[in-house]
């Protein structure tokens, strides 16, 4: 070979060597399970994995954690290129890029209908755990949205948990008079913007129209023609009545949590999983949780409550006994208990013998009484609706648009193909 050809040939060889190194999956070991989970669930997942490996010493579980955004984007890339882990976080229902309704139709998830836990999934949660009548995810935690508050702070106002809308508005004024906010609100963080609307819409929409999602899907109703209008109007009324801290649009989620922990606000409307974070910042303070009332009839109040964390089995790993064993463990009473205990939440699969955090009593009561409705975005047909909701709430608080304009934008996003 001439010297002139030697260099390019060497480069070509190096390039081929590099590409050959990346070929092949090399992951055919029958006793190894790869898992990808949300970094917010690191503690419970580590605990579950430790318990699983103790019970199954022959199986090695490797977990990779990623933040929500990274997880959703990476997972899609891995699935499309055939390099996804065996078990991974899947969001129940619809509404985001790694949600069940987006992954199952593509054949990326294994059918888990035959698994032992499938029959124990509550009827109310099946719409967000099933696709075309088959179960595709193992739900592990159940969460709800309500007012997480400091019991001592509320008692200092000489008040009790408000059960009606009027009581809530009155309490906002009382708190203001005492120099604190009743509710901390961090609407600078987009996902926080949705929580108050959800908490109000649970009652304003679903009390009178329990089949609202089905009717939306059929095109028989719209956000503009539903209780969503009342929910957004009441959201703004709470702002006008001084229920929230000053400048919610300039306040982040982290700042809102700190605000409650430091006593500048009595509570905040949040998902139950935030309870542990508030507790960690608030020290020994006793916390409670109540449903956000939206009408003056306390019996009408409903609470957003739904399967929160869930996992799917990669369709390409469906034949892996080790991966299936891990999924079964997640759905077992032991796995559910460990996950919920370490995560400070409720189990997705009901377990009457399990003791729960007293602060979550309201949520368990509502769950038991069938007075919960799934998180709204889990029933929306595409992620654009949720993002539009974030944007319009911020625009409403900035005074840039009206409620009617906000609802029109959400309707347009809902109908987007």
């Amino acid at each position, binding site marked *: 070979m001439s010297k002139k050809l030697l*260099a*390019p040939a060497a*480069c070509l060889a*190096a*390039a081929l060597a590099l590409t050959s190194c990346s070929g092949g999956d090399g992951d055919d070991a029958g006793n190894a399970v790869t898992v990808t989970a949300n970094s917010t669930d690191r503690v419970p997942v580590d605990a579950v994995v430790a318990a699983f490996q103790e019970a199954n010493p022959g199986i090695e579980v490797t977990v990779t954690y990623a933040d929500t*955004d990274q997880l*959703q*984007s990476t997972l*899609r*890339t891995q*699935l*499309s290129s055939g390099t996804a882990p065996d078990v991974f976080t899947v969001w129940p229902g619809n509404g*985001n*890029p790694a949600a069940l309704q*987006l*992954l199952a139709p*593509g054949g*990326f998830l294994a059918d888990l209908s035959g698994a032992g836990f499938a029959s124990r999934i509550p009827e109310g949660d099946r719409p967000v755990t099933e696709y075309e009548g088959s179960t595709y995810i193992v739900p592990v935690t159940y969460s709800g949205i309500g007012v997480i508050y400091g019991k001592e702070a509320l008692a200092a106002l000489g008040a009790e948990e408000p059960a009606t809308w009027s009581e809530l508005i009155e309490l906002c004024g009382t708190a203001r008079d005492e120099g604190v906010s009743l509710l901390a609100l961090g*609407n*600078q*963080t*987009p996902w926080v913007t949705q929580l108050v609307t959800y908490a109000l819409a649970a009652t304003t929409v679903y009390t009178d129209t329990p089949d609202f999602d089905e009717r939306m899907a059929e095109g028989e109703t719209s956000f503009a023609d539903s209780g969503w209008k009342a929910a957004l109007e009441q959201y703004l009324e709470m702002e006008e009545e001084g229920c929230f*801290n*000053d*400048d*919610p*649009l*300039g*306040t*982040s989620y982290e*700042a809102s949590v700190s605000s409650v922990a430091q006593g500048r606000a009595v509570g905040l409307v949040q998902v139950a999983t935030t309870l542990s974070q508030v507790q960690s910042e608030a020290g020994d303070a006793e916390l409670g949780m109540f449903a956000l009332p939206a009408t003056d009839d306390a019996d009408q109040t409903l609470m957003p409550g739904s399967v929160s964390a869930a996992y799917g089995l990669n369709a390409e790993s469906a034949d892996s006994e080790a991966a299936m064993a891990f999924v079964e463990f997640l759905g077992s009473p032991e796995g559910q208990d460990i996950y919920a205990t370490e995560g400070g939440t409720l189990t997705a699969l009901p377990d009457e013998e399990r003791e729960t955090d007293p602060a979550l009593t309201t949520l368990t009561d509502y769950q038991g009484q069938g007075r919960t409705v799934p998180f709204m975005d889990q029933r929306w047909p*595409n*992620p*654009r609706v949720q*993002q539009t909701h*974030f*944007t*319009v709430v*911020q*625009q409403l*608080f*900035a005074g*840039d*648009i009206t409620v009617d304009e906000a609802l029109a934008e959400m309707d347009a996003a809902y109908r987007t193909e």
Partner: protein
Amino acid sequence: METAMAPKAQPAAPAGSASPPPPAPARRFRTDRIAVPWWFVLPALAFFAFAVLVPSARGAVYSFTDWDGLARSSSFVGLEHYRSLLSDSGARDALVHTLLIAFSVTVVQNAVGLLLALGVNTRIRSRNVLRVFFFAPAVITPVVTAYLWKYLYAPEGAINAALDALGLGLLTQSWLGDSDLALWSVVAVIVWQFSGYSMVIFLAGLQSIPREIYEASDMDGAGPVRRFWHIVRPMLAPAFTINLMLSLIGGLKLFDQVWVMTQGGPGGATDTLSTVIYREAFQFNAFAYSTAMAVVLTLFVIVLSGVQYGYLGRQERNS
């Protein structure tokens, strides 16, 4: 590149020739001198093509399909995404924000950088300390500075607290929560972080100006303004070109700071093309559409920086 590679394309002797005529010594010497450096560059160039050029070109192809980032197949849709872009008010708003950020950052960052460079190019004793002080923010990761500023900008953050303490409570603002102000708050952070970077480039230019020229202008009775305009400014032309190019391109593709501080909010008031591209791809599953936006952004960067480079190049030659 064509010039450099041209010698390789010279007709060579056919393979198997018994005794090809030896090239003229001068010509051979020139060919080797040009070819050898290219062999050294080739691995890096190959990696660049593998990691950047090829994926970018393939990404551009996706903009003509309906690929959602997940499906194993896609259909050709022609220019549909580009037509949709024209009627996408969100993308239009993001484009306006992007241009506002790019131009304001380019102007203010370089103005501040130039002033700082002129200031630390004097004989004051603390000049070395000041140079480090002003340049320090530029070496911090943008994401980290964005998080720090997010806390400083908070309603009860250090900026409003300082204003209150100084009796200037009336000037306290919702820095990131006010849709009219948030964009400029983000711009201020970028200017704060990278003015020192511009300063260093200007400073290098200033220090390359021979002292004799300053002394001659002193003897001619030129004041500071005239000296700046007629000596410093023309001789800093290359530094201006580099700084203006870098800050314009940086402003056009801005993502990190916006995403950390506002995620495009409140209500889309700080959305840039990059944040919208990210959201379309990774939150809305509209990979092909987001790729079309990325292609448009790339064209914007190429055209604007090309026009700017052409103009500044002429200025340099005139200087």
